[in-house]
């Protein structure tokens, strides 16, 4: 039981990333009718905002310590980050909380990037075929990934989580398991709750604000809303910014789960697309549900127990293809995904 509980936690955690990216993809698709293959890149850019911030904090005052030598035998340079030099222990605190503080920067920066992307590129593709949209955003994703690689290199870059969240929590005892049997990393729990908050926030925003109502109406019937004299385009631009911010902040928080690397956007993009398609193009709830569902299935498939069972009946291990396999089955059984609407994206 504890093993299954653990894998459900893992699944929810993986699902968080899928759901957050898929949500943005669906929002963009639903509002603007654009298939954005560069959305994974936005997630990656978010992660690198955290990297940049941590690098900025590391800018150091260099003093030479004559007693020590470096690897070439020259006098060693001692580096003290300026923030620590200036603010003392408060500086240490800032460095410790790099990731959460990066969020504050990431939100406006990502909205800006999103708006620039929409105004500068995406808007010119509203009336082009979906294939063109896929192709141009695919090109953009390559360019963004390569630019990040040019600047930051191809290796993963560690960004540390706050000291207080480094350890793992014996979460099992809350649910009546033996102490020590279900231990889960603190930061992954933070990440999960973060995603729940963001997801609820977006849903609440769409449901309870006038802005959200107009956007939802626009998703259902763009022309009619346009006829009502509402400047739907402006709202959709903002929507794109919000979707970018959701992906970006997800990326920032993800740096504490896995080390950011330039190709993480592409890694997530394909899976997120599968998630969106399984959920049903244009369905926000479908995207979120499919995200968590696939995350959990993926986790179960990687359990040694399951792997052994599959091997026992003579099949190859399926944990690496489970998501695709499920996607194929669901699409064949439910043509429009779990919650998709008819006629969307079928031309």
């Amino acid at each position, binding site marked *: 039981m504890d093993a299954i509980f653990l894998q459900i936690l893992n699944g929810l955690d993986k699902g968080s990333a899928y759901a957050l990216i898929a949500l943005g993809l669906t929002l963009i698709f639903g509002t603007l009718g654009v*298939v954005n293959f560069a959305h994974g890149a936005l997630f990656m850019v978010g992660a690198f905002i955290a990297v940049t911030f941590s690098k900025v904090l590391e800018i150091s005052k260099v003093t030479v310590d004559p007693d020590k030598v470096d690897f070439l035998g020259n006098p060693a340079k001692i580096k003290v980050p300026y923030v620590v030099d200036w603010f003392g222990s408060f500086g240490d605190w800032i460095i410790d909380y790099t990731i959460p503080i990066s969020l504050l920067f990431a939100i406006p920066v990502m909205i800006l990037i999103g708006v620039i992307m929409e105004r500068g*590129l995406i808007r*010119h593709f509203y009336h*082009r*075929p*979906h*294939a*063109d949209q*896929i*192709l*141009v955003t*695919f*090109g*953009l994703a*390559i*360019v963004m990934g*390569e*630019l990040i690689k*040019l600047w930051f290199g191809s290796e993963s870059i560690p960004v540390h989580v706050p000291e207080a969240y480094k350890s793992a929590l014996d979460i099992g005892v809350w649910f009546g398991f033996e102490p020590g049997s279900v231990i889960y990393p603190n930061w992954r729990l933070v990440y999960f709750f973060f995603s729940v908050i963001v997801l609820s926030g977006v849903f609440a925003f769409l449901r309870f604000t006038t802005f959200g109502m107009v956007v939802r109406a626009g998703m259902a019937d763009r022309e009619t809303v346009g006829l009502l004299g509402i400047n739907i385009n402006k709202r959709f631009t903002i929507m794109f910014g919000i979707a970018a911010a959701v992906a970006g902040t997800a990326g920032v928080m993800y740096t504490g789960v896995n080390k950011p690397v330039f190709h993480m956007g592409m890694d997530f993009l*394909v899976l997120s*697309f*599968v998630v969106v*398609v399984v959920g049903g*193009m244009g369905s926000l709830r479908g995207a979120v549900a499919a995200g968590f569902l696939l995350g959990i299935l993926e986790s179960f498939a990687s359990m040694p127990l399951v792997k052994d069972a599959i091997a026992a009946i003579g099949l*190859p*291990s399926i944990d*690496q*293809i489970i998501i*695709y*396999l499920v*996607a*194929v089955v669901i*699409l*064949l059984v439910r*043509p*429009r*995904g779990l919650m998709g609407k008819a006629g969307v*994206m*079928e*031309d």
Partner: protein
Amino acid sequence: MVRFNDKLTLLIFTALVLAAPLILAPTGAAYPDLMQRFAIYGIFAIGFNILFGLTGYLSFGHAAFLGVGSYAAMWMFKLLSMNIIPALILSVIIAGLFSLVIGYISLRRSGIYFSILTLAFAEMSYKMAYSVLTPLTNGETGLQLALDDPRILDGVQAQDSLPSTNLFGFEMKEVFWNPHIFGYDLQFNYGYYVCAILLILSFYIAMRIFRSPFGLMLRAVKTNQTRLNYTGISSRPYTLAAFVISGMFAGLAGGLLATMDPSVGAERMQWTVGGEVVLMVVLGGMGTLIGPFLGAIFIKYFENIFSKINEGVVHGWFAYLPDWADNLLAAIVSPFVGKGWHLTLGLLFMIVVIFLPGGLVDGGRRLFRWVIRADKKDIGV
């Protein structure tokens, strides 16, 4: 505008392809390996265009057929004979069957659902080939020839070096003529001409399909499937036929890759390779006859020549300038060449999609028209 008729087009195409070792010499691309890649990926792209260009169905999964074709050919080399004929036949058949299965399932959906399904199949094939199918594919290392392969038909002569692929004794890699013309060392080898002849044949087949009632139906699928169905045409078998034909072209290309270089890596099945052929077709001009081949040349040239321009070479270009100018220019240029070739490719691709939806062919046409117009102005017409 000058209108080429088909015979003339085919004739010019044939002439250019056969003379490629001479024509390409000044570009640095006239060595057998790259020229064969041009021809092979040309076949791949031309076939893919029959699906994507005509019906508009965007498949990200054709890498799987390329890979299957290669594996099939390799197994023929290992088990039967180093003669390329049985290998190529088997690779086309296997790829055809494989694409029939995947196409049958994927084509139950359309639009992006179709794209994602094909992508899913390609990724599954790649991942399986990389790991669990290792006995069949030799996984990470890739399938290669070995000294102890049975090779039922011609295994007897196996010595202590690996045999070469051949066409009834003509070795693919053999350079049969090596003249020096205009200071260039030209290499004519059998392998290229085998690929070239199959390329011309593929081009001819594609041309016939484009002009045929079948091709007309495929174009009709792209513009209005509803109308087509209400006109008494069942669109799915048509798209499936196009899918399988393009899959067979991919299988042929895969088989040829194995004849040129008897080794297959699982990466050949990755969806990014399938994405590459999409780039080729779009860059060249989707739905045009010659575009996909141009796109294939363009991308393979980038991958093999552009990627080798390292910083030393860049500095070599600007060496005549003063130091500061050299450094400045090199700093500007370097990120885009050599290891930055992906970046340049991505940018170019975006530019083409944004400004030249018809690809290079469209660009060429516009340029041509512009020149004609300028000409007319000059003579006051």
